[in-house]
Protein backbone atom coordinates (compact mmCIF):
# COMPACT_ATOMS: atom_id res chain seq x y z
CA UNK A 1 0.00 0.00 0.00
CA UNK A 2 1.68 3.16 -1.15
CA UNK A 3 1.97 6.41 0.80
CA UNK A 4 -0.29 8.06 -1.75
CA UNK A 5 -3.03 5.47 -1.23
CA UNK A 6 -2.67 5.83 2.53
CA UNK A 7 -2.99 9.56 2.12
CA UNK A 8 -6.11 9.08 -0.03
CA UNK A 9 -7.59 6.86 2.65
CA UNK A 10 -6.78 9.50 5.28
CA UNK A 11 -8.58 12.16 3.25
CA UNK A 12 -11.54 9.81 2.86
CA UNK A 13 -11.74 9.30 6.62
CA UNK A 14 -11.33 13.01 7.29
CA UNK A 15 -14.06 13.83 4.81
CA UNK A 16 -16.34 11.26 6.43
CA UNK A 17 -16.26 13.25 9.69
CA UNK A 18 -15.94 16.83 8.52
CA UNK A 19 -17.34 18.64 11.52
CA UNK A 20 -15.28 16.68 14.00
CA UNK A 21 -12.13 17.19 11.94
CA UNK A 22 -12.77 20.91 11.69
CA UNK A 23 -13.21 21.19 15.44
CA UNK A 24 -10.07 19.13 15.96
CA UNK A 25 -8.17 21.41 13.65
CA UNK A 26 -9.34 24.54 15.40
CA UNK A 27 -6.46 24.65 17.86
CA UNK A 28 -3.94 24.32 15.04
CA UNK A 29 -5.78 26.87 12.91
CA UNK A 30 -5.82 29.44 15.71
CA UNK A 31 -2.20 28.78 16.59
CA UNK A 32 -0.91 29.07 13.04
CA UNK A 33 -3.03 32.15 12.37
CA UNK A 34 -1.83 33.86 15.53
CA UNK A 35 1.82 33.07 14.85
CA UNK A 36 1.58 34.34 11.28
CA UNK A 37 -0.22 37.55 12.20
CA UNK A 38 2.09 38.31 15.11
CA UNK A 39 5.25 37.65 13.14
CA UNK A 40 3.75 39.67 10.30
CA UNK A 41 3.04 42.52 12.69
CA UNK A 42 6.64 42.39 13.89
CA UNK A 43 7.87 42.51 10.33
CA UNK A 44 5.58 45.43 9.63
CA UNK A 45 6.86 47.32 12.66
CA UNK A 46 10.47 46.66 11.73
CA UNK A 47 9.87 47.78 8.17
CA UNK A 48 8.13 50.88 9.40
CA UNK A 49 11.03 51.66 11.73
CA UNK A 50 13.54 51.03 8.99
CA UNK A 51 11.70 53.34 6.62
CA UNK A 52 11.36 56.11 9.17
CA UNK A 53 15.02 55.82 10.09
CA UNK A 54 16.04 55.60 6.45
CA UNK A 55 14.49 59.01 5.86
CA UNK A 56 16.62 60.22 8.73
CA UNK A 57 19.58 58.48 7.16
CA UNK A 58 21.43 55.41 8.24
CA UNK A 59 24.78 56.69 6.99
CA UNK A 60 24.60 59.67 9.29
CA UNK A 61 25.93 60.60 12.67
CA UNK A 62 24.48 63.46 14.62
CA UNK A 63 26.80 65.50 16.82
CA UNK A 64 25.42 67.68 19.58
CA UNK A 65 27.83 70.00 21.35
CA UNK A 66 26.69 71.08 24.78
CA UNK A 67 30.06 72.55 25.65
CA UNK A 68 31.60 73.09 29.03
CA UNK A 69 30.45 76.48 30.06
CA UNK A 70 31.98 79.04 27.74
CA UNK A 71 35.55 78.05 28.53
CA UNK A 72 35.81 75.32 25.94
CA UNK A 73 34.04 74.93 22.69
CA UNK A 74 34.66 73.86 19.17
CA UNK A 75 34.17 76.15 16.22
CA UNK A 76 32.55 75.26 12.94
CA UNK A 77 35.90 75.50 11.18
CA UNK A 78 37.47 73.14 13.72
CA UNK A 79 34.68 70.67 13.07
CA UNK A 80 35.30 70.85 9.32
CA UNK A 81 38.99 70.28 9.98
CA UNK A 82 38.19 67.29 12.18
CA UNK A 83 36.16 65.65 9.44
CA UNK A 84 38.85 66.35 6.88
CA UNK A 85 41.49 64.78 9.12
CA UNK A 86 39.49 61.56 9.24
CA UNK A 87 38.50 61.44 5.59
CA UNK A 88 38.93 57.68 5.41
CA UNK A 89 35.90 57.26 7.68
CA UNK A 90 34.06 60.57 7.60
CA UNK A 91 32.71 61.95 4.39
CA UNK A 92 30.71 65.15 4.79
CA UNK A 93 29.73 67.68 7.43
CA UNK A 94 27.02 70.20 7.74
CA UNK A 95 26.12 72.33 10.73
CA UNK A 96 22.42 72.21 11.46
CA UNK A 97 20.69 75.07 13.20
CA UNK A 98 17.02 74.68 13.83
CA UNK A 99 15.12 77.89 13.85
CA UNK A 100 12.09 78.50 15.99
CA UNK A 101 10.11 81.30 14.61
CA UNK A 102 7.27 82.62 12.61
CA UNK A 103 7.26 82.30 8.85
CA UNK A 104 4.93 84.44 6.88
CA UNK A 105 4.04 84.69 3.22
CA UNK A 106 2.24 87.99 3.00
CA UNK A 107 -0.27 87.62 5.80
CA UNK A 108 -0.38 83.83 5.90
CA UNK A 109 1.54 82.00 8.64
CA UNK A 110 3.37 78.79 7.75
CA UNK A 111 4.20 75.96 10.11
CA UNK A 112 7.11 74.68 8.06
CA UNK A 113 10.27 73.44 9.77
CA UNK A 114 13.16 75.83 9.31
CA UNK A 115 16.76 74.64 9.42
CA UNK A 116 20.03 76.39 8.87
CA UNK A 117 22.41 74.17 6.94
CA UNK A 118 25.79 74.11 5.21
CA UNK A 119 26.36 74.09 1.47
CA UNK A 120 26.74 70.29 1.37
CA UNK A 121 23.63 69.50 3.34
CA UNK A 122 21.22 68.87 0.46
CA UNK A 123 23.68 66.49 -1.22
CA UNK A 124 24.36 64.66 2.01
CA UNK A 125 20.63 64.17 2.51
CA UNK A 126 20.18 63.12 -1.09
CA UNK A 127 17.76 65.97 -1.72
CA UNK A 128 17.51 67.21 -5.28
CA UNK A 129 16.31 70.50 -6.61
CA UNK A 130 13.30 70.88 -8.83
CA UNK A 131 13.88 74.54 -9.55
CA UNK A 132 16.56 77.16 -8.92
CA UNK A 133 19.75 76.47 -6.99
CA UNK A 134 20.73 75.15 -3.61
CA UNK A 135 22.53 76.78 -0.67
CA UNK A 136 26.03 77.71 -1.80
CA UNK A 137 29.29 78.46 -0.03
CA UNK A 138 28.96 82.16 -0.79
CA UNK A 139 25.50 82.17 0.82
CA UNK A 140 27.06 80.78 3.97
CA UNK A 141 30.14 82.96 4.06
CA UNK A 142 28.23 86.14 3.33
CA UNK A 143 25.25 85.24 5.51
CA UNK A 144 22.83 85.87 2.69
CA UNK A 145 19.15 85.85 3.52
CA UNK A 146 18.23 83.26 0.96
CA UNK A 147 16.44 79.97 1.31
CA UNK A 148 15.42 76.76 -0.41
CA UNK A 149 11.85 75.59 0.17
CA UNK A 150 10.18 72.22 0.04
CA UNK A 151 7.73 71.29 -2.70
CA UNK A 152 4.75 71.66 -0.38
CA UNK A 153 5.58 75.28 0.45
CA UNK A 154 6.13 76.04 -3.23
CA UNK A 155 2.81 74.54 -4.23
CA UNK A 156 0.66 75.81 -1.41
CA UNK A 157 1.91 79.39 -1.13
CA UNK A 158 3.53 80.18 -4.45
CA UNK A 159 1.57 78.13 -6.97
CA UNK A 160 4.77 76.26 -7.89
CA UNK A 161 6.41 79.47 -8.89
CA UNK A 162 8.48 80.19 -5.81
CA UNK A 163 11.94 81.02 -7.11
CA UNK A 164 12.56 84.75 -6.86
CA UNK A 165 9.70 85.27 -4.40
CA UNK A 166 10.19 86.29 -0.80
CA UNK A 167 8.84 85.29 2.57
CA UNK A 168 9.47 86.51 6.09
CA UNK A 169 11.17 84.60 8.87
CA UNK A 170 10.69 86.35 12.21
CA UNK A 171 10.00 89.50 10.28
CA UNK A 172 13.19 89.37 8.21
CA UNK A 173 12.78 89.15 4.48
CA UNK A 174 14.25 86.01 2.90
CA UNK A 175 14.30 85.33 -0.83
CA UNK A 176 13.69 81.92 -2.29
CA UNK A 177 16.45 80.66 -4.59
CA UNK A 178 15.45 77.04 -5.04
CA UNK A 179 12.64 74.49 -4.70
CA UNK A 180 13.22 70.86 -3.73
CA UNK A 181 11.80 67.84 -5.53
CA UNK A 182 8.73 66.36 -3.98
CA UNK A 183 9.69 63.63 -1.49
CA UNK A 184 6.46 62.09 -0.29
CA UNK A 185 3.64 60.76 -2.41
CA UNK A 186 1.07 62.64 -0.41
CA UNK A 187 2.36 66.05 0.54
CA UNK A 188 0.81 67.38 3.69
CA UNK A 189 1.29 70.10 6.22
CA UNK A 190 4.05 69.13 8.64
CA UNK A 191 5.40 66.48 6.24
CA UNK A 192 8.92 66.27 4.87
CA UNK A 193 7.95 68.53 1.98
CA UNK A 194 6.85 71.30 4.32
CA UNK A 195 10.33 72.66 5.00
CA UNK A 196 12.65 75.57 4.53
CA UNK A 197 16.48 75.61 4.48
CA UNK A 198 18.66 78.67 5.17
CA UNK A 199 22.47 79.04 5.24
CA UNK A 200 23.48 78.05 8.80
CA UNK A 201 25.44 81.28 9.25
CA UNK A 202 22.36 83.30 8.46
CA UNK A 203 20.21 81.16 10.70
CA UNK A 204 22.52 81.36 13.68
CA UNK A 205 23.18 85.07 13.31
CA UNK A 206 19.65 86.26 12.78
CA UNK A 207 17.34 83.63 14.15
CA UNK A 208 19.02 81.85 17.06
CA UNK A 209 21.68 82.52 19.66
CA UNK A 210 24.65 82.72 17.33
CA UNK A 211 26.05 79.40 18.41
CA UNK A 212 26.23 76.40 16.16
CA UNK A 213 25.84 73.42 18.40
CA UNK A 214 24.71 70.54 16.20
CA UNK A 215 26.13 68.91 13.16
CA UNK A 216 25.26 66.21 10.73
CA UNK A 217 28.15 64.00 9.64
CA UNK A 218 27.94 61.45 6.86
CA UNK A 219 30.24 58.46 6.88
CA UNK A 220 32.32 57.16 3.98
CA UNK A 221 31.24 53.56 4.47
CA UNK A 222 27.90 52.67 6.03
CA UNK A 223 29.24 49.33 7.25
CA UNK A 224 31.94 51.09 9.28
CA UNK A 225 29.61 53.60 10.87
CA UNK A 226 30.54 52.36 14.34
CA UNK A 227 34.25 52.97 13.67
CA UNK A 228 33.41 56.41 12.37
CA UNK A 229 31.44 57.14 15.52
CA UNK A 230 34.38 56.07 17.69
CA UNK A 231 36.81 58.26 15.76
CA UNK A 232 34.52 61.24 16.09
CA UNK A 233 34.00 60.67 19.78
CA UNK A 234 37.75 60.29 20.37
CA UNK A 235 38.47 63.55 18.53
CA UNK A 236 35.81 65.40 20.51
CA UNK A 237 37.10 63.94 23.75
CA UNK A 238 40.55 65.28 22.85
CA UNK A 239 39.02 68.74 22.53
CA UNK A 240 36.83 68.74 25.61
CA UNK A 241 38.60 66.26 27.86
CA UNK A 242 35.19 65.21 29.11
CA UNK A 243 32.57 62.97 27.57
CA UNK A 244 29.58 64.96 28.86
CA UNK A 245 30.21 67.94 26.62
CA UNK A 246 29.11 66.31 23.41
CA UNK A 247 27.00 63.44 22.15
CA UNK A 248 27.41 61.55 18.92
CA UNK A 249 24.36 59.57 17.96
CA UNK A 250 24.18 56.90 15.39
CA UNK A 251 20.86 56.29 13.63
CA UNK A 252 21.84 52.85 12.40
CA UNK A 253 22.68 51.71 15.91
CA UNK A 254 19.44 53.14 17.21
CA UNK A 255 17.56 51.32 14.46
CA UNK A 256 19.34 48.11 15.29
CA UNK A 257 18.51 48.41 18.97
CA UNK A 258 14.91 49.17 18.14
CA UNK A 259 14.68 46.23 15.74
CA UNK A 260 16.16 43.77 18.17
CA UNK A 261 13.74 44.95 20.82
CA UNK A 262 10.78 44.54 18.47
CA UNK A 263 12.18 41.17 17.45
CA UNK A 264 12.36 40.03 21.04
CA UNK A 265 8.83 41.15 21.87
CA UNK A 266 7.52 39.46 18.73
CA UNK A 267 9.36 36.23 19.49
CA UNK A 268 7.83 36.10 22.95
CA UNK A 269 4.36 36.83 21.60
CA UNK A 270 4.78 34.20 18.86
CA UNK A 271 5.84 31.64 21.44
CA UNK A 272 2.76 32.40 23.49
CA UNK A 273 0.66 31.99 20.36
CA UNK A 274 2.56 28.78 19.70
CA UNK A 275 1.15 27.31 22.91
CA UNK A 276 -2.11 27.10 21.04
CA UNK A 277 -0.34 24.78 18.59
CA UNK A 278 0.55 22.52 21.50
CA UNK A 279 -3.04 22.57 22.72
CA UNK A 280 -4.15 21.82 19.17
CA UNK A 281 -1.79 18.86 19.06
CA UNK A 282 -3.26 17.48 22.26
CA UNK A 283 -6.72 17.90 20.74
CA UNK A 284 -5.60 15.87 17.74
CA UNK A 285 -4.20 13.16 19.97
CA UNK A 286 -7.45 13.04 21.89
CA UNK A 287 -9.64 12.73 18.82
CA UNK A 288 -7.31 10.16 17.26
CA UNK A 289 -7.62 8.03 20.39
CA UNK A 290 -11.40 8.24 20.09
CA UNK A 291 -11.13 7.41 16.42
CA UNK A 292 -8.98 4.35 17.12
CA UNK A 293 -11.57 3.10 19.61
CA UNK A 294 -14.39 3.69 17.18
CA UNK A 295 -12.59 1.94 14.41
CA UNK A 296 -11.33 -1.00 16.43
CA UNK A 297 -13.36 -3.38 14.31
CA UNK A 298 -12.08 -1.86 11.08
CA UNK A 299 -8.55 -2.26 12.37
CA UNK A 300 -9.29 -5.90 13.21
CA UNK A 301 -10.65 -6.54 9.71
CA UNK A 302 -7.64 -4.90 8.12
CA UNK A 303 -5.26 -6.93 10.24
CA UNK A 304 -7.12 -10.16 9.46
CA UNK A 305 -6.84 -9.34 5.77
CA UNK A 306 -3.10 -8.99 6.08
CA UNK A 307 -2.30 -5.43 7.10
CA UNK A 308 1.03 -5.37 8.93
CA UNK A 309 1.38 -3.31 12.12
CA UNK A 310 3.53 -0.84 10.21
CA UNK A 311 0.77 -0.27 7.65
CA UNK A 312 -1.84 0.45 10.35
CA UNK A 313 0.59 2.71 12.20
CA UNK A 314 1.32 4.62 9.02
CA UNK A 315 -2.35 4.95 8.20
CA UNK A 316 -3.18 6.61 11.53
CA UNK A 317 -0.07 8.77 11.67
CA UNK A 318 -0.74 10.03 8.17
CA UNK A 319 -4.35 10.69 9.10
CA UNK A 320 -3.27 12.76 12.11
CA UNK A 321 -0.63 14.59 10.10
CA UNK A 322 -3.13 15.29 7.33
CA UNK A 323 -5.60 16.68 9.85
CA UNK A 324 -3.04 18.99 11.42
CA UNK A 325 -1.49 19.83 8.05
CA UNK A 326 -4.89 20.86 6.71
CA UNK A 327 -5.38 22.89 9.88
CA UNK A 328 -2.04 24.53 9.14
CA UNK A 329 -3.16 25.37 5.60
CA UNK A 330 -6.39 26.92 6.85
CA UNK A 331 -4.36 28.77 9.46
CA UNK A 332 -2.02 30.16 6.81
CA UNK A 333 -4.93 31.31 4.66
CA UNK A 334 -6.65 32.87 7.66
CA UNK A 335 -3.36 34.39 8.79
CA UNK A 336 -2.90 36.13 5.46
CA UNK A 337 -6.48 37.34 5.50
CA UNK A 338 -6.22 38.69 9.05
CA UNK A 339 -2.88 40.33 8.20
CA UNK A 340 -4.66 42.31 5.51
CA UNK A 341 -7.46 43.24 7.86
CA UNK A 342 -4.95 44.21 10.55
CA UNK A 343 -3.06 46.41 8.10
CA UNK A 344 -6.22 48.31 7.24
CA UNK A 345 -7.29 48.59 10.89
CA UNK A 346 -3.87 49.79 12.08
CA UNK A 347 -3.58 52.28 9.25
CA UNK A 348 -6.98 53.71 10.03
CA UNK A 349 -6.64 53.76 13.79
CA UNK A 350 -3.11 55.06 14.21
CA UNK A 351 -2.51 56.79 10.90
CA UNK A 352 0.84 55.05 10.64
CA UNK A 353 1.41 53.00 7.54
CA UNK A 354 2.36 49.68 9.15
CA UNK A 355 1.90 46.86 6.67
CA UNK A 356 1.42 43.53 8.44
CA UNK A 357 3.49 41.34 6.14
CA UNK A 358 3.65 37.62 6.98
CA UNK A 359 7.12 36.30 6.28
CA UNK A 360 7.65 33.17 4.21
CA UNK A 361 9.83 31.81 6.98
CA UNK A 362 6.96 32.11 9.47
CA UNK A 363 4.59 30.40 7.04
CA UNK A 364 7.07 27.59 6.35
CA UNK A 365 7.71 27.16 10.04
CA UNK A 366 4.01 27.19 10.92
CA UNK A 367 3.17 24.53 8.35
CA UNK A 368 6.18 22.44 9.28
CA UNK A 369 5.35 22.62 12.96
CA UNK A 370 1.69 21.78 12.41
CA UNK A 371 2.53 18.65 10.42
CA UNK A 372 5.17 17.69 12.96
CA UNK A 373 2.57 18.08 15.71
CA UNK A 374 0.24 15.75 13.83
CA UNK A 375 2.96 13.12 13.49
CA UNK A 376 4.06 13.53 17.09
CA UNK A 377 0.63 13.50 18.71
CA UNK A 378 -0.76 11.02 16.20
CA UNK A 379 1.93 8.51 16.97
CA UNK A 380 0.62 7.36 20.32
CA UNK A 381 -2.93 6.62 19.13
CA UNK A 382 -1.54 5.08 15.94
CA UNK A 383 0.67 2.73 17.91
CA UNK A 384 -2.31 1.76 20.01
CA UNK A 385 -4.19 0.93 16.82
CA UNK A 386 -1.29 -0.99 15.31
CA UNK A 387 -0.86 -3.15 18.40
CA UNK A 388 -4.51 -4.16 18.73
CA UNK A 389 -4.97 -7.89 18.89
CA UNK A 390 -6.90 -8.80 15.70
CA UNK A 391 -9.06 -11.38 17.50
CA UNK A 392 -10.24 -8.89 20.13
CA UNK A 393 -10.59 -6.19 17.51
CA UNK A 394 -12.80 -8.38 15.32
CA UNK A 395 -15.06 -9.19 18.23
CA UNK A 396 -15.33 -5.53 19.26
CA UNK A 397 -18.69 -3.79 18.85
Amino acid at each position, binding site marked *: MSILETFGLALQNIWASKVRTLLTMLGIIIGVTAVIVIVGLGNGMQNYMRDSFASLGTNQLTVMISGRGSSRSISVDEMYQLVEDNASLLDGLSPTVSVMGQIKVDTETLSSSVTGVGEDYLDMKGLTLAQGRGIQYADVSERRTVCVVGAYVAREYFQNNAVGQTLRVNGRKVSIVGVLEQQEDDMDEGGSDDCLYLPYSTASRFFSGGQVSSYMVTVADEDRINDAQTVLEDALYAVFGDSDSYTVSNMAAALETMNSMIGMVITILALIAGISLLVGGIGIMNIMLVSVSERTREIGIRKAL*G*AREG*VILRQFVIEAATTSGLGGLFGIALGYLLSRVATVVITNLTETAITVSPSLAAVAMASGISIAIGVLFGFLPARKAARLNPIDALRYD
Partner: protein
Amino acid sequence: METLIEFRQVCKYYRMGEETVVAADHIDMTIQRGEFVAIVGQSGSGKSTCMNIIGCLDVPSEGVYLLDGQNVGQLSAKKLAAIRNKMLGFIFQQYNLLPKQSILENVEVPLMYAGVPRGERRRRAMEALEQVGLADKYRHRPSQLSGGQQQRASIARALAGRPAIILADEPTGALDSHTGREVLSMLQDVHRQGNTVVLITHDNSIACQAQRIIRLEDGRVVYDGDPHAPQAVVRHRPGGEEAAQ
Protein backbone atom coordinates in the same frame (compact mmCIF):
# COMPACT_ATOMS: atom_id res chain seq x y z
CA MET B 1 -2.66 -35.68 -1.57
CA GLU B 2 -0.80 -32.80 -0.10
CA THR B 3 -1.14 -31.81 3.54
CA LEU B 4 -1.98 -28.15 3.92
CA ILE B 5 -2.91 -27.86 7.58
CA GLU B 6 -1.39 -30.00 10.28
CA PHE B 7 -2.01 -29.70 14.04
CA ARG B 8 0.37 -31.66 16.24
CA GLN B 9 -0.73 -31.76 19.88
CA VAL B 10 -1.91 -28.17 19.69
CA CYS B 11 -2.92 -26.64 23.02
CA LYS B 12 -4.22 -23.18 23.80
CA TYR B 13 -4.59 -21.77 27.29
CA TYR B 14 -6.20 -18.51 28.32
CA ARG B 15 -5.88 -16.88 31.68
CA MET B 16 -9.22 -15.69 33.03
CA GLY B 17 -8.26 -13.93 36.23
CA GLU B 18 -6.97 -16.64 38.54
CA GLU B 19 -8.14 -19.54 36.40
CA THR B 20 -6.49 -20.99 33.35
CA VAL B 21 -8.99 -22.04 30.69
CA VAL B 22 -7.98 -24.81 28.32
CA ALA B 23 -9.44 -23.86 24.94
CA ALA B 24 -7.58 -26.45 22.89
CA ASP B 25 -6.41 -29.66 24.46
CA HIS B 26 -3.80 -31.58 22.47
CA ILE B 27 -5.55 -31.38 19.14
CA ASP B 28 -4.20 -33.46 16.28
CA MET B 29 -5.62 -33.02 12.81
CA THR B 30 -4.61 -32.73 9.20
CA ILE B 31 -6.41 -31.13 6.30
CA GLN B 32 -5.37 -31.88 2.73
CA ARG B 33 -5.26 -29.43 -0.12
CA GLY B 34 -8.58 -29.29 -1.94
CA GLU B 35 -10.69 -30.62 0.95
CA PHE B 36 -13.96 -29.14 2.24
CA VAL B 37 -13.87 -29.64 6.00
CA ALA B 38 -16.34 -28.51 8.63
CA ILE B 39 -15.14 -27.98 12.16
CA VAL B 40 -18.21 -28.37 14.36
CA GLY B 41 -18.85 -27.85 18.00
CA GLN B 42 -20.98 -26.08 20.57
CA SER B 43 -19.88 -22.76 21.94
CA GLY B 44 -16.93 -23.30 24.25
CA SER B 45 -15.88 -26.41 22.34
CA GLY B 46 -12.72 -24.69 21.11
CA LYS B 47 -13.77 -24.27 17.50
CA SER B 48 -13.18 -20.52 17.58
CA THR B 49 -9.74 -21.10 19.04
CA CYS B 50 -9.07 -23.58 16.23
CA MET B 51 -10.23 -21.12 13.65
CA ASN B 52 -8.04 -18.35 15.14
CA ILE B 53 -5.03 -20.64 15.06
CA ILE B 54 -5.73 -21.94 11.55
CA GLY B 55 -6.28 -18.33 10.46
CA CYS B 56 -2.95 -17.25 11.94
CA LEU B 57 -4.73 -14.71 14.12
CA ASP B 58 -3.37 -16.54 17.13
CA VAL B 59 -0.58 -18.98 17.85
CA PRO B 60 -0.70 -22.23 19.89
CA SER B 61 0.43 -22.15 23.53
CA GLU B 62 1.88 -25.62 23.03
CA GLY B 63 2.28 -27.97 20.11
CA VAL B 64 2.97 -27.28 16.50
CA TYR B 65 0.81 -25.86 13.75
CA LEU B 66 2.23 -26.46 10.29
CA LEU B 67 0.62 -24.45 7.51
CA ASP B 68 1.84 -25.69 4.15
CA GLY B 69 4.85 -27.15 5.96
CA GLN B 70 5.70 -23.92 7.80
CA ASN B 71 5.73 -23.77 11.59
CA VAL B 72 3.47 -20.82 12.21
CA GLY B 73 3.96 -20.65 15.98
CA GLN B 74 7.47 -19.33 15.55
CA LEU B 75 6.70 -16.48 13.19
CA SER B 76 6.72 -12.76 13.98
CA ALA B 77 3.57 -10.64 13.86
CA LYS B 78 4.78 -9.20 10.57
CA LYS B 79 5.21 -12.66 8.99
CA LEU B 80 1.83 -13.78 10.34
CA ALA B 81 0.22 -10.76 8.69
CA ALA B 82 1.87 -11.67 5.41
CA ILE B 83 0.66 -15.29 5.71
CA ARG B 84 -2.92 -14.16 6.47
CA ASN B 85 -2.72 -11.98 3.42
CA LYS B 86 -1.35 -14.58 1.00
CA MET B 87 -2.61 -17.93 2.33
CA LEU B 88 -5.97 -17.20 3.91
CA GLY B 89 -9.31 -15.85 2.84
CA PHE B 90 -11.65 -15.05 5.72
CA ILE B 91 -15.43 -15.16 5.64
CA PHE B 92 -17.00 -13.90 8.87
CA GLN B 93 -20.44 -14.33 10.37
CA GLN B 94 -20.88 -10.54 10.50
CA TYR B 95 -19.42 -10.12 6.97
CA ASN B 96 -16.97 -7.54 8.35
CA LEU B 97 -16.96 -5.35 5.30
CA LEU B 98 -15.56 -1.84 5.70
CA PRO B 99 -18.70 0.31 5.87
CA LYS B 100 -17.28 3.51 4.38
CA GLN B 101 -15.89 1.88 1.27
CA SER B 102 -17.56 0.50 -1.82
CA ILE B 103 -17.92 -3.23 -2.43
CA LEU B 104 -15.15 -3.08 -5.02
CA GLU B 105 -12.80 -1.26 -2.63
CA ASN B 106 -13.60 -3.84 0.04
CA VAL B 107 -12.69 -6.70 -2.28
CA GLU B 108 -9.50 -4.87 -3.19
CA VAL B 109 -8.28 -4.55 0.42
CA PRO B 110 -6.33 -7.87 0.64
CA LEU B 111 -4.83 -7.23 -2.80
CA MET B 112 -3.81 -3.75 -1.69
CA TYR B 113 -1.96 -5.13 1.31
CA ALA B 114 -0.35 -7.70 -0.99
CA GLY B 115 1.04 -4.83 -3.05
CA VAL B 116 -0.86 -5.69 -6.25
CA PRO B 117 -0.73 -2.68 -8.56
CA ARG B 118 -3.90 -0.66 -8.93
CA GLY B 119 -4.97 -1.75 -12.40
CA GLU B 120 -4.55 -5.44 -11.79
CA ARG B 121 -6.11 -5.08 -8.38
CA ARG B 122 -9.23 -3.58 -9.88
CA ARG B 123 -9.40 -6.29 -12.55
CA ARG B 124 -9.01 -9.17 -10.10
CA ALA B 125 -11.51 -7.65 -7.68
CA MET B 126 -14.07 -7.31 -10.47
CA GLU B 127 -13.42 -10.93 -11.49
CA ALA B 128 -14.09 -12.07 -7.94
CA LEU B 129 -17.29 -9.99 -7.82
CA GLU B 130 -18.43 -11.55 -11.10
CA GLN B 131 -17.81 -14.96 -9.62
CA VAL B 132 -20.28 -14.25 -6.79
CA GLY B 133 -22.71 -12.42 -9.09
CA LEU B 134 -22.24 -8.92 -7.66
CA ALA B 135 -20.38 -7.28 -10.53
CA ASP B 136 -23.24 -4.82 -11.12
CA LYS B 137 -23.20 -3.70 -7.48
CA TYR B 138 -19.50 -2.88 -7.30
CA ARG B 139 -20.05 0.81 -6.48
CA HIS B 140 -22.51 0.19 -3.67
CA ARG B 141 -21.71 0.59 -0.03
CA PRO B 142 -22.13 -2.54 2.11
CA SER B 143 -25.12 -0.95 3.88
CA GLN B 144 -26.94 -0.70 0.55
CA LEU B 145 -26.83 -4.48 0.09
CA SER B 146 -28.86 -7.28 1.70
CA GLY B 147 -27.21 -9.63 4.17
CA GLY B 148 -26.84 -12.36 1.56
CA GLN B 149 -25.28 -9.95 -0.88
CA GLN B 150 -22.89 -8.67 1.77
CA GLN B 151 -21.82 -12.20 2.56
CA ARG B 152 -21.29 -12.87 -1.16
CA ALA B 153 -19.15 -9.72 -1.29
CA SER B 154 -17.10 -11.03 1.59
CA ILE B 155 -16.71 -14.37 -0.26
CA ALA B 156 -15.45 -12.36 -3.24
CA ARG B 157 -13.01 -10.59 -0.93
CA ALA B 158 -11.79 -13.93 0.39
CA LEU B 159 -11.37 -15.28 -3.15
CA ALA B 160 -9.72 -12.19 -4.68
CA GLY B 161 -6.33 -12.85 -3.14
CA ARG B 162 -6.37 -16.47 -4.44
CA PRO B 163 -5.49 -17.86 -1.02
CA ALA B 164 -4.67 -21.50 -0.28
CA ILE B 165 -7.45 -21.77 2.28
CA ILE B 166 -10.92 -20.23 2.54
CA LEU B 167 -11.77 -19.99 6.21
CA ALA B 168 -15.49 -19.44 6.85
CA ASP B 169 -16.58 -18.71 10.41
CA GLU B 170 -20.34 -19.31 10.77
CA PRO B 171 -20.91 -17.83 7.32
CA THR B 172 -24.66 -18.42 7.46
CA GLY B 173 -25.14 -17.47 11.08
CA ALA B 174 -26.60 -14.05 10.37
CA LEU B 175 -28.69 -15.12 7.37
CA ASP B 176 -32.15 -16.61 6.97
CA SER B 177 -32.22 -20.27 5.96
CA HIS B 178 -32.88 -19.58 2.29
CA THR B 179 -29.99 -17.14 1.79
CA GLY B 180 -27.92 -19.33 4.08
CA ARG B 181 -28.37 -22.22 1.65
CA GLU B 182 -27.39 -19.96 -1.25
CA VAL B 183 -24.22 -18.90 0.47
CA LEU B 184 -23.47 -22.50 1.36
CA SER B 185 -23.90 -23.69 -2.22
CA MET B 186 -21.62 -20.88 -3.28
CA LEU B 187 -19.00 -22.22 -0.87
CA GLN B 188 -19.48 -25.65 -2.43
CA ASP B 189 -18.86 -24.09 -5.85
CA VAL B 190 -15.73 -22.47 -4.48
CA HIS B 191 -14.61 -25.89 -3.28
CA ARG B 192 -15.42 -27.55 -6.62
CA GLN B 193 -13.16 -25.02 -8.31
CA GLY B 194 -10.29 -26.59 -6.40
CA ASN B 195 -10.12 -24.44 -3.28
CA THR B 196 -9.57 -25.76 0.20
CA VAL B 197 -12.51 -24.69 2.36
CA VAL B 198 -12.62 -24.87 6.14
CA LEU B 199 -16.06 -24.16 7.56
CA ILE B 200 -16.53 -23.45 11.25
CA THR B 201 -20.04 -23.86 12.59
CA HIS B 202 -22.14 -25.06 15.49
CA ASP B 203 -24.89 -26.23 13.15
CA ASN B 204 -24.85 -29.91 12.19
CA SER B 205 -27.10 -29.45 9.18
CA ILE B 206 -24.67 -26.97 7.73
CA ALA B 207 -21.63 -29.00 8.66
CA CYS B 208 -23.15 -31.94 6.72
CA GLN B 209 -22.63 -30.02 3.49
CA ALA B 210 -18.88 -30.54 3.88
CA GLN B 211 -16.89 -33.57 2.73
CA ARG B 212 -15.63 -34.23 6.18
CA ILE B 213 -16.49 -33.24 9.72
CA ILE B 214 -14.15 -32.61 12.61
CA ARG B 215 -16.16 -32.44 15.80
CA LEU B 216 -14.72 -30.66 18.82
CA GLU B 217 -15.81 -30.87 22.42
CA ASP B 218 -14.10 -29.21 25.36
CA GLY B 219 -11.06 -28.48 23.25
CA ARG B 220 -10.66 -32.06 22.02
CA VAL B 221 -11.36 -33.76 18.71
CA VAL B 222 -14.13 -36.29 19.31
CA TYR B 223 -14.95 -37.21 15.74
CA ASP B 224 -13.14 -36.87 12.43
CA GLY B 225 -14.61 -38.37 9.29
CA ASP B 226 -17.62 -38.83 7.02
CA PRO B 227 -20.37 -36.26 7.69
CA HIS B 228 -23.07 -38.80 6.98
CA ALA B 229 -21.91 -41.42 9.49
CA PRO B 230 -24.19 -41.60 12.55
CA GLN B 231 -21.37 -40.67 14.92
CA ALA B 232 -20.87 -37.38 13.12
CA VAL B 233 -23.98 -35.86 14.60
CA VAL B 234 -23.71 -37.56 17.97
CA ARG B 235 -23.02 -35.48 20.99
CA HIS B 236 -20.18 -36.82 23.04
CA ARG B 237 -19.93 -36.37 26.74
CA PRO B 238 -16.74 -36.18 28.74
CA GLY B 239 -15.76 -39.64 29.92
CA GLY B 240 -16.48 -41.27 26.57
CA GLU B 241 -20.18 -42.02 27.13
CA GLU B 242 -22.23 -41.50 24.01
CA ALA B 243 -25.78 -40.39 23.65
CA ALA B 244 -27.94 -39.47 20.69
CA GLN B 245 -28.42 -35.75 20.36
